[in-house]
Structures are given as C-alpha cells and as structure tokens.
C-alpha cells in the first residue's frame, strides 16, 4: 500500500518552507488551511490557519463574513474608466440555472472584470447539522450539492468515521467508490452537454443529454435513487449489487461507454464546436496553482494531481486510476480532461465490477483522527478536491467545515474571464462545472 502523500499538521507551519509553497488556500471560515506543494507532490492541511500578519502565506481570499448574505466569491478588482458600468447577471437566469449572480464590469462587449457573487442559496447546512446524529446529518450533507451527493457523503462519512475511529467494511468503501465514479460520469457528460448547448450543437446536445439521463437511470436502478440520495447511508433505498446485478450493471455501463466514445469523437471532429472553446477562458499553470484551482481545472492547466491517487484508500488503492492532464488551460483542455476522466471512470468501474467479489470483503480501519474527535475526509469530487473537517462527539456532529471544489475554482474562473467577450461567458462558466449550492452550503 502506497503512503498517503499528504499530511495533517495541527498548527501552521510558519517560515521559509511554508511560504515557499506554491498554493496557499484559506477557505471561507479560516478554520483550516490547505497547502499543496505540487512540485514535491505533497499537500499539508493545517487545522488553524495562519493569517498573513502571523507570517503565513498571503491569504488569497478573505474569510466571508457572512455566508448567508450575497458576497463576492473572487477577489474584487476595481476597474474604472469612462463609460464603465457594472452589469449584474443573476441571481435568476436560465443561462445559469442556479441562484447566483455575476457582477460584470464592462464598457460594453468586453468583460473587464467579473465577480461571482454567492450567498443567495445558503441553506445553513453547516449550522443545521450541529447536534444531529451522523446518519441524520448525512441526509443534509448529500443535499449540499445534489449532483455531487456521493462525493459529499463519502467525504463526510470518511471524516466522521475517522473522527470516531470507526471501522468501515471494505465493501462499504467499494460501494462509495462505485457511486462516486458513476456520478463523475454523469457530471462530466452533463458538463459536455452544457457546453454543447452553449455552442448550439443541438444534435450533440440531445445525444449527450440522453447519455446523462441514461446514467441517472442506471443510478436509479442500482441504488434506488437517481441522485444517489441515501444510497451510501444505512437504511437507504435498497441497492442492488449482488452478482447478477453487477453483471447487468457491467453490461449497461459497457453500452454507455461505447456510446460516449462515439459521441466524444464526433465532438472532436466538429470544428465549430472546437473553435468556440479553444482559447476560451484560459487559465495558465501559474494562475491555476496561485489561484488555488482544483480538479479538472487544475489538471487542464498542467498539474497532474488527483486525490484518488494521492489518498489511496479502498477501492482506489487496488485499482488502476488513469491520471490525464493537459496543458492548454482553456475550456477545450478542461473538456478534454473531463472526457478522458469519463473514459477513466468507465475503466475503474469495469475493474471494480470485475474484482468485486474478491476485493470487497473484510473491514479496514478508518484514518486516524487529526485531533480527538476531529476527522478529515478528502475525496476527488467531479469538479475537484473536496475536503470535510468534521468534529463528532458521542455520535453527533459537533462542527462541520468544508472546502468545496466549486469554492476553490471561482478565483481562476474570474481571472480567466478578464478581457473575454460576453459571449464567452457560458462556454467558460460551464467548462468549470460549478455548483452554487455547494459554494453556499
């Protein structure tokens, strides 16, 4: 078993080494901080974040004073000049089918600066879960982002289990992996469909949209719920994963994989489609690392980092996990990464179903708590690195903090949109796979 290439430090590492690290990310609430040193392949999580005054790395982003009020999600840049005005887009628009706003600074046509504004749809999950039993809290956590539910629940349970040092059946971990990979496929296909819609690739949209629906139906058929709600929890809708079911599942996934392969090749052949996303909203490697990007966004900008490889727990420690990365940094590169990851996920699922019977037996201990009663859970969600920091006392959640991939990527999105034209917006926005729901929590 490989060693985890990340570690947790209870207090901030202050001084030369820490400040030299490439990434410094201070999440909204400032309760923990994450440093990724991509050159060394190590990331360090500290449980109390140092402020810049204390010698910590420069905080790229100030703590949100109140998550439930509208607030900027990226550094506000003051752009002024003759005829310049702010164009508020949202919080209700069909272009962005979630409640969130974008304040576009412009003199017309061109985006001089774009500030995503969140806080419209905070459902107070972090506050509401306090005092609830872990299983009940999980019902809220999986609704943090409906289309990332498996990742959120997996990370949350991982954190809660390690906080209480519970032993987890290996089979349960395999189910979580299976659910996450299915949902990754759904989300990546969905993103491709959204970009195709923005590019008016209507046949491609219909075909991809149908494929996404088929994945939802597979999830509904094998986990009892189209969005996997409750599927990873005790007492959830019955999952059907016995030998016969697994056989049928493998068969259906095989069809979907072939279908996807055909579609993606057709997309790659469509010049109008590629032209529209090539060079759109570019994020350089330095920007991605400096801005704290995660997931496909980071991998599209030339950094090969994937939590599934960095944090080798079951089932990923036993499987071949491809790690695609691109250097373009534009919407096209992000889309290629997503397509490659759909292929990778089909491959992972194939391996899992193949080896299910022999590998998913027994139990393995949860990760050790980072502090008494406090655990960290970290998974690679469809849009990137998702971190949960959970404190549990007597089976009830004491405190919940998290850093979501959507929250991490806003900064580079805003930077990439600078100097773009209005019409780039949808291509750019969709290529990141943002979910306002998990940003607001």
């Amino acid at each position, binding site marked *: 078993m490989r060693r985890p290439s990340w570690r947790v430090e209870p207090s901030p590492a202050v001084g030369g080494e820490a400040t030299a690290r490439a990434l410094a990310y201070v999440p909204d609430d400032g309760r923990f901080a994450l440093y990724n040193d991509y050159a060394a392949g190590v990331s360090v999580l500290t449980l109390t974040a140092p402020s810049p005054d204390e010698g910590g790395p420069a905080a790229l982003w100030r703590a949100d004073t109140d998550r439930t009020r509208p607030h900027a999600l990226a550094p506000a840049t003051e752009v002024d000049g003759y005829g310049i005005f702010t164009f508020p887009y949202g919080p*209700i628009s069909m272009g962005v089918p979630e409640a969130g706003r974008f304040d576009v600074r412009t003199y017309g046509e061109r985006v001089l600066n774009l500030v995503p504004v969140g806080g419209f749809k905070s459902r107070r999950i972090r506050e509401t879960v306090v005092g609830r039993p872990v299983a*009940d809290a999980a019902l809220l956590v999986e609704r943090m982002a*409906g289309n990332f539910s498996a990742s959120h629940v997996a990370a949350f349970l991982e954190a809660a289990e390690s906080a209480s040092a519970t032993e987890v059946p290996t089979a349960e971990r395999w189910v979580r992996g299976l659910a996450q990979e299915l949902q990754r496929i759904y989300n990546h296909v969905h993103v491709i469909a959204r970009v195709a819609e923005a590019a008016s690739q209507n046949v491609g949209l219909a075909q991809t949209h149908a494929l996404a629906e088929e994945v939802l139906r597979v999830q509904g058929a094998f986990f009892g719920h189209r969005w996997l709600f409750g599927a990873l929890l005790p007492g959830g809708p019955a999952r059907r994963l016995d030998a016969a079911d697994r056989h049928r599942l493998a068969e259906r996934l095989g069809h979907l994989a072939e279908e996807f392969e055909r579609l993606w090749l*057709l997309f790659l052949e469509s010049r109008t489609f590629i032209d529209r996303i090539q060079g759109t909203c570019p994020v350089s490697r330095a920007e991605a690392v400096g801005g704290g990007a995660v997931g496909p966004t980071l991998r599209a900008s030339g950094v090969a980092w994937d939590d599934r490889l960095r944090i080798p727990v079951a089932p990923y420690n036993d499987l071949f996990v491809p790690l695609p990365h691109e250097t373009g940094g534009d919407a096209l590169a992000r889309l290629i990464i997503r397509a490659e990851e759909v292929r990778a996920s089909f491959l992972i699922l194939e391996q899992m179903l193949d080896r299910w019977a022999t590998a998913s037996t027994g139990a393995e201990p949860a990760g050790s708590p980072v502090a008494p009663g406090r655990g960290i859970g970290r998974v690679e969600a469809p849009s990137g690195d998702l971190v949960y920091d959970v404190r549990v006392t007597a089976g009830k959640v004491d405190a919940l903090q998290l850093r979501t991939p959507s929250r991490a990527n806003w900064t580079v999105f805003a930077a990439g949109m600078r100097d773009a034209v209005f019409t780039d917006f949808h291509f750019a926005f969709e290529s990141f796979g943002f979910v306002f729901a998990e940003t607001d929590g």
Partner: protein
Amino acid sequence: MPSWIQQSASRGILTSRYPKDAAADEEVSPTGRPPLPVAGVASLPAARDSCPVGAISDTAVDQGKCIRCARCVAAGLTFTGPVEAATRSRDDLLRISSGPVPSPAAPPPLARLGRSLHLFLVDVGSCNACNLEVLALANPYYDVQRLGLFFTNSPRHADVLLVVGVPTPEMAEPLRRAYEALPGPKAVVAVGACPISGGAFAGAPGLVPGLAEIVPVDVFVPGCPPSPTAILDAILKLNGRDRAARGGP
C-alpha cells in the same frame, strides 16, 4: 455533420410516450414514487419515528415533507404510490391511498392558454438536483417540446414559474420580482419537497418554510427530487392535459 445524423439515427426513438402511455418503471426510480403504508393507516404510528423529517403522522403520510430517504421502508412503507403525485392543494398531499389524485372541481388554472405553455425555472435555494431534473425534461427521453412546453430565458415570456429549492431570505425578493414579471394568466409550480415544506432543511434557521408564503402556488410536486415524469405531470395539470384528465388509469 453526416456522422451526427448517422449517430442520431442509430439510436432510434428514445422519447417516452408519456402521458399517452403510462410511465415505465425505467423512467421512474423507486424513490420517484410516493411511499405508502403496506398495511394501511393502522401501521403508521409504528412507522412514525423512522421518519427524519416528521412526514409520517398517526393518520397520514405528508408527501409534501417526504424526502424519500427510505428509512420508513423497514417500518412497513413502500414506494408504490402513483408517479402522478402532484396536487393542486397542499392538503391533498396528505394522502395515503394508492389511487389517482382526486381531481379538484376548479378548472385547470391555465386552460385558457390551450396546449402550449412557456416555462421559467427559478432556483430559490436548491441542492441543484431539482434544477437538473427540470432541465432533464428537455432531453430526448422526455422531450417536452412535443407537448408544446418550452423553456424561456426570461419570465417576461413565460406562463409558468417552476420554483425549486427552499426559499432563502435572499431569494424571496428576486422570486417576487420574477412572479411580478410574468404576464397573466400565470401559474407557479412548487417542484420538490423544499418549496412545499422546506424538505430536508425544514426547521433550519432563517429559511422560509414554504413557497406559498411568498407567492401563490398552483401545483405542488412532492419528491426529493421529483422525477421528470412527475414534474411533467404537474405542468400538464395546469392546462388540463395531464394523464388523469386524458382519462388514463
């Protein structure tokens, strides 16, 4: 281009024949149907404590609160209710029978508009699942354009607001604006447990516990999230072209 045509042709017709035919099981996952007690009302008191959102009382299952977590399955309920679970009154959601929803005496609110309706999606605090289920109506499996239903980009062009999510205080005012912007006659559909009762978030501090406190609601669609078929049925209830009105079983 020829290859796209080839690709489309090779897939054949995917589109459901709903509401002409009944929805197939494939279209509706188990949790897409409302839970009902196998042994009738008498078994409800025993099942009451299994529900994390308090949807089960001694006499009824409040479908408007149910988040389909399936914990009550062990206590004798099953997901066997009709897919067409949407109702035009909040009280009708407290049903336990497996029969079709009783048709209200009042005519459908948008019957005047004929067969075509324009839809506008408003998210007031959802988890994004309901948003995606509403958007899924446009995919080839449901293809609601065949029924004269279209999504618009502005409430100014819409007849129907599809509201998803539990209303946050921040979204109350934008929602009111969107409702005002709709030309009449207009209707509001509360899609999912969140806008009906707060769903999984009921009782969270600061949230509005129901959409009806902000705008009048014409149709309530239970579910977390409701399946696209259930949402489609709810929309068709507005102009009286739903399966029940067509005399379907």
